[in-house]
C-alpha cells in the first residue's frame, strides 16, 4: 500500500494510515496517520475523549474502521488477528474481570482463550505473570475484592501472560498510587529493554514524559503532533525573558525589533522568531539604556506544548 510508505515494514510495529471512525454523525477518529517504530516506547497522548481508545480498539480488531488501514507487526488488521494478536499484549480501556473468580482463575481463563497457549504450562505462566506485577499474595482472592490498583495490575498481568513483541497499554497507571505508578513505569522500561515495543496511551503528560521515547498527540480525533520527545520539544517556539526595572522601555525596544512582548511587573516576555539571535536583542536593549538585570531564553515545557496543542490543560472531553 503506497499510503503506508512511512517506514519500512520490518522496522514498524504499528502502521496506521488514513484511519477514520465515525459513530453516527460524530467523527471519533479523523484521518489518523501514525508510525510506531519497533523497539520504541511510544506515548499516545491526548485529553479524554480525543479518540485514543477508539484508535486502540481499531488497532486490536475490536472495532471496524470506517476508512483507513491498520498494520500490526507487519500484518493487516483485522484480517490477521489470529496470527498477530498472540504476539500482542493489551490493556484496553481499563481492566475487566469476572468478579466471582479469583485473580489466578481470571488469568487462567484468559490464557485458555488463546488457542496457541499450551495448557500444560498454563499454571506456570499465570504464576509468573502474577509475580511480575506483584500480585502473588492476592492471587487467590476473588477479583471483586481487589482494589482499583490491584485490578490494574491484574490487567497488566493478563497482557504479560506470554512473551509479547508489542504491548498496547491504554492508561496503564489509572487508579494506581504513586508507588504503583512507579512500578508500572519500571515494568514498562524492563519490557522495552527486553526488546518489546510499547504503545502507551495516557492523558497525563508527566507519565508519557518519563516513559516514552516518542509521542503522538491527539486532539478531537486528529493527530496534532508526533515524533520523538526532543522533536516535539523543539517545535515549540522559544521565548526571551527580560528582567528589568525599565519594563516599558524594554517592551518598546522589543516591539521595534518586530516582537510582541507582554509585560508583567518587572518582567517582559516575548516569543522569539526563529531568525533572531538572542545577543542582538540584548545589544538593542543595552543600546536603548534599558537596565537589564536578567536575560534568558526559555524553551517551553512539554506541558505548555501539550496545552497549546490540545487547547486544554485539564482532562476533559475535547
Amino acid at each position, binding site marked *: 500500500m503506497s499510503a503506508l510508505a512511512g517506514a519500512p515494514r520490518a522496522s514498524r510495529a504499528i502502521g496506521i494510515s488514513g484511519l477514520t471512525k465515525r459513530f453516527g454523525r460524530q467523527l471519533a477518529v479523523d484521518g489518523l496517520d501514525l508510525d510506531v517504530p519497533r523497539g520504541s516506547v511510544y506515548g499516545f497522548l491526548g485529553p479524554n475523549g480525543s479518540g485514543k481508545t477508539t484508535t486502540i*480498539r481499531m488497532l486490536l*480488531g475490536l472495532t471496524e474502521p470506517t476508512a483507513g488501514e491498520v498494520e500490526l507487526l507487519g500484518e493487516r488488521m483485522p484480517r490477521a488477528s489470529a496470527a498477530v494478536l498472540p504476539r500482542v499484549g493489551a490493556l484496553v480501556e481499563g481492566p475487566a474481570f469476572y468478579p466471582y473468580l479469583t485473580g489466578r482463575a481470571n488469568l487462567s481463563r*484468559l490464557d485458555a482463550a488463546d488457542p496457541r497457549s499450551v495448557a500444560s504450562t498454563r499454571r506456570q505462566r499465570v504464576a509468573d505473570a502474577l509475580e511480575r506485577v506483584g500480585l502473588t499474595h492476592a492471587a487467590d482472592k476473588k477479583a471483586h475484592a481487589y482494589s482499583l490498583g490491584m485490578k490494574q495490575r491484574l490487567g497488566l498481568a*493478563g497482557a504479560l501472560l506470554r512473551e509479547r513483541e508489542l504491548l498496547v497499554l491504554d492508561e496503564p497507571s489509572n487508579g494506581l498510587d504513586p508507588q504503583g505508578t512507579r512500578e508500572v513505569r519500571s515494568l514498562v522500561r524492563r519490557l522495552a529493554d527486553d526488546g518489546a515495543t510499547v504503545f502507551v496511551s495516557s492523558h497525563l503528560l508527566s507519565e508519557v514524559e518519563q516513559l516514552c521515547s516518542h509521542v503522538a498527540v491527539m486532539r478531537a480525533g486528529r493527530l496534532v503532533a508526533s515524533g520523538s520527545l526532543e522533536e516535539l520539544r523543539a517545535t515549540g517556539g522559544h521565548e526571551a525573558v527580560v528582567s528589568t526595572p525599565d519594563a516599558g522601555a524594554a517592551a518598546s525596544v522589543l516591539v521595534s525589533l518586530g516582537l510582541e512582548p507582554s509585560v508583567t511587573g518587572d518582567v517582559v516576555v516575548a516569543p522569539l522568531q526563529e531568525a533572531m539571535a538572542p545577543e542582538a536583542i540584548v545589544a538593542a536593549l543595552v543600546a536603548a539604556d534599558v537596565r537589564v538585570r536578567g536575560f534568558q531564553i526559555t524553551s517551553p515545557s512539554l506541558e505548555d506544548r501539550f496545552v497549546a496543542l490540545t487547547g486544554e490543560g485539564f482532562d476533559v472531553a475535547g
Partner: protein
Amino acid sequence: MSQAEAAAGAREASVSSGTGGIARRRVFALLGSELGTLFRRRRTIAMLVALAAVPVLIAIVVRVTGAGSSGRGPAFLGAITDNGLFVAFTALVVCIPLFLPLTLGVVAGDTIAGEAGLGTLRYLLVAPTGRLRLLIVKYVGVLAFALAATVVIVLAGIGIGALLFPIGPVTLLSGDTVDAAGFFVRTALLACYVALSLTSLGAIGLFISTLTTVPVGAMAATVVLAGVSQILDQLPQLDWVHPWLFTHYWLGFGDLLRDPVVWDSYGQNALLQLGYVTVFGALAYARFATKDILS
C-alpha cells in the same frame, strides 16, 4: 480453574502431539474454561438447586397430605403414591413451562451480553478468541446447562421418590409395564427430549445476547419469548401457526411413555429445534461477526 481445567489439560496433552493437536486444542481449552466457569458459578449452582427443589417439594406435599389420585393437578401426580418414580415425570411437567425456560434464559441471555457487560469480551477477543469460536463455545455451554438442568430434576425426582414412596415396575401410558432397566432407558430418552426442546430457546437467547451489553435485558427478553410462544400455542384461532412455535412440542413427550415408543413427536421436535438453532445461530453469527465491541 482446577478440575475442569486439569481435565481439559489432560485431553490436550494427549492430542497435542498429533497434527490435529492445534485445531483440537483451540476448541477444548476455552470450552473447558467456559464449562468450569459456568458450573462453578454460584448463580448456576443456585438455579440447579432450585430446580432440584421442585421434585422434592412435590414429593413432600404429596406425602404429607396423602393426596392420592384425585385426577386433578399436573400429569402423573396421581401416580406418585403408587410409584415414587413418577415424581421425576411430574416434576418435569411442572418445570417445563416456566422454571426450565427461566433458568435457561438466564444462562443463554448472559452468554455474550454478560461478557460485554463485564468488559471481559474485549479481552477474550484480543486473546485472541475468534468470534465464531466464542459463539460456539458459549452455545455449547448453554446446551450443557439445558442437559444438566433436566438431569438434575430427573435425578432429584427419582431420589426423593424412592425415599418417600414405594417404587416398582412402571406402568406406561399404553398400559404396559416396564422394569427398572426399561424405566431408566425411557427416563434418559425423556431427559434428552426435554433438553433437546430447549436448544431453540438457547439459540434465541444467544442471538438476543449479541444485541446488547445488558445481560439482564437479554435474559428477560429470552424468557418473555418463551412465554409468548406458549401463549400463542394456546390460542385455537392461531392453530395454523402452532406447529412452527418452538414451544409446541415441549410437553409432547407422552409418546415416549408408550410401548412401543412412538417416535413421531421426537422427530418433528428435533427437526423444528434444528430449524430454530440454524436460523438464530446464523443471526447471532451475522450480528456478532461484524459487531463493534465498544464495551
